[in-house]
């Protein structure tokens, strides 16, 4: 086709006029260049992801002392006189409680019992959680012995803590990021579904601490706290230490929404 011909493109014809073809080649190359720039900018401007881990495809069997203070945990011996309390969670956005019903029927006095549980580990920043997906993977090893239960101590009374109420399952590994506004709806569903609410705080040295949130009597809180989930908030209450976990006992009605930009503390 001659260069100076009055070109006209018709899509269903096989031939594309010469000058039109050149223009389209330039447009396609330009678009690909733009696409690469956009991909580069969007990928490079993401916040750094945490090195949290969720072992979705790996099952781990752990053995330890079951307790509820008030949330189900397994106290696991990691070395001589050293224990780690592993928070137990159910599949998806659910509590572990439905998976414990079977063994609760078999063992009425479950707290203090030695159990072996197989599930998927979640861990980050010194905290470990276990996702349980089947009641068949929970087995009794030894019957209850209250001496094996962790000791709780009131550490501080009337403390005010700024932080974000998170759902620990996502925060400690299942999702990245498992915090902030993007994740708020998910965290609300997790906590409504029975996953314990946790207050994540960060001090001026960028050291984070985590508090399992309960009511003033140390009983579980779930739906009542959802208006504050995923938002910077101020919580006031008593801190109780249960070995390697802190518990913050609060009156939900005293939580203050700090109305600050959504970010983790």
């Amino acid at each position: 086709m001659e260069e100076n011909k009055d070109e006209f493109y018709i899509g269903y014809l096989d031939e594309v006029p010469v000058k039109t073809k050149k223009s389209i080649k330039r447009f396609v190359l330009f678009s690909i260049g733009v696409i690469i720039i956009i991909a580069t900018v969007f990928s490079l401007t993401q916040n750094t992801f945490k090195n949290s881990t969720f072992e979705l495809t790996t099952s781990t069997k752990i053995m330890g002392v079951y307790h509820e203070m008030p949330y189900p945990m397994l106290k696991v011996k990691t070395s001589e006189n050293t224990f780690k309390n592993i928070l137990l969670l159910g599949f998806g956005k659910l509590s572990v409680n439905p998976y414990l019903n079977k063994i609760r029927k078999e063992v009425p006095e479950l707290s203090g019992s030695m159990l072996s549980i197989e599930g998927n580990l979640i861990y980050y920043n010194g905290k470990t959680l276990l996702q349980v997906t089947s009641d068949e993977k929970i087995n009794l090893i030894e019957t209850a012995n209250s001496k094996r239960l962790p000791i709780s101590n009131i550490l501080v009374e009337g403390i005010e803590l700024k932080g974000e109420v998170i759902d620990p399952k996502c925060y400690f590994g299942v999702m990245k990021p498992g915090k902030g506004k993007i994740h708020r709806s998910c965290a609300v569903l997790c906590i409504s579904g029975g996953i314990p609410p946790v207050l994540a705080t960060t001090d001026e040295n960028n050291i984070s601490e985590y508090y399992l949130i309960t009511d003033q009597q140390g009983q579980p809180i779930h739906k009542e706290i959802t208006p504050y989930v995923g938002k910077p908030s101020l919580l006031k209450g008593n801190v109780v230490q249960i070995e390697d976990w802190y518990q913050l006992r609060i009156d939900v009605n005293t939580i203050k929404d700090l109305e600050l930009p959504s970010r983790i503390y």
Partner: protein
Amino acid sequence: MGLDYQTVLWNKQKKTYDKWIAITMLIYLICFIGITILTNPETSIETLIIRAFGTLAIALLHIILAIGPLTRLNPKFLPILYNRRHLGVSMFLAALVHGGFSIFQFHSLGTTNPIYALFTSNIEYNSFTNFPFQVLGFFALIILFLMAATSHDFWLKNLSPKTWKRLHMMVYIAYGLIILHIFLGALQQQPSWGSIGVLSLGFIVITSLHLSTAFKESKLDKSKTSHVDDGWEYVCTTDEIPEDRAKIFIVDKERIAIFKYDQKLSAISNVCKHQGGPLGEGKIVDGCITCPWHGYQYLPHNGQSPPPFTEKVSTYRLRLIGKKIYVLPKALAEGTAVEPVIL
């Protein structure tokens, strides 16, 4: 041209077009995923998929929105308009992967129905900063779905071109919803000048192209023809219309195209029956006026598509005095034969 329908009427150009859509999408995904893994290796596969496909959909949407005005400003871009629907469907699929994964990740596997949870897990609809941004993305995805689902000519014909066009103009509502979805979601949690800059630049480019097109079109709409006493209007001289091409005028508030071909002149409505393409920017090919958008054809003397096709557009009477062309502004019934003016 709308007589019977196949899923896709493949031809060489469509295959080439689709090949480049796939290559472009693949390049984007490889770049985004590769750079993220290299620079931010602690990411998770779910987050990578959600973000890669979400940002890909935004990038494609900008290209799609630029195509319309680009072709109005420069006909050399017409080939990218020809198969824009496939690009639109590809963009919807990318958005669907983003939305589908997000709904599964953030709203499923709980005690509540995921769609119900999407609307109710954050109910701060009265707050701008805490607004549930997911809802905006959901409605945008519904619009994109409706557009993708009705993109075939079957729906164009059955919904009527006017309704179809209105439905597909909702892409601008989807664009607005998506921009808000991003600014009230991802960019609120991790604001970055780079991402804000890309989106702002995209908005400026799209808006500028549309304003430029609107300015160009408004100049045409404002152009006046000269009234003469007996109802005829003077439009131009024969020299002003290139051979096998047309010139567009506004008469009786309608755009008409006057074509010059084979030492003859004919006038028809400027609006193609297929998607409202500008017939006056088309060309006489094989004796037929050929629409620049998708190649729909009409016979110049009667505005009818050649058999077996059935589309018809209005025709107009012309008169030639010396080299001066006059038109009778009243449109004749669609498909009415009018003897061409002989030059």
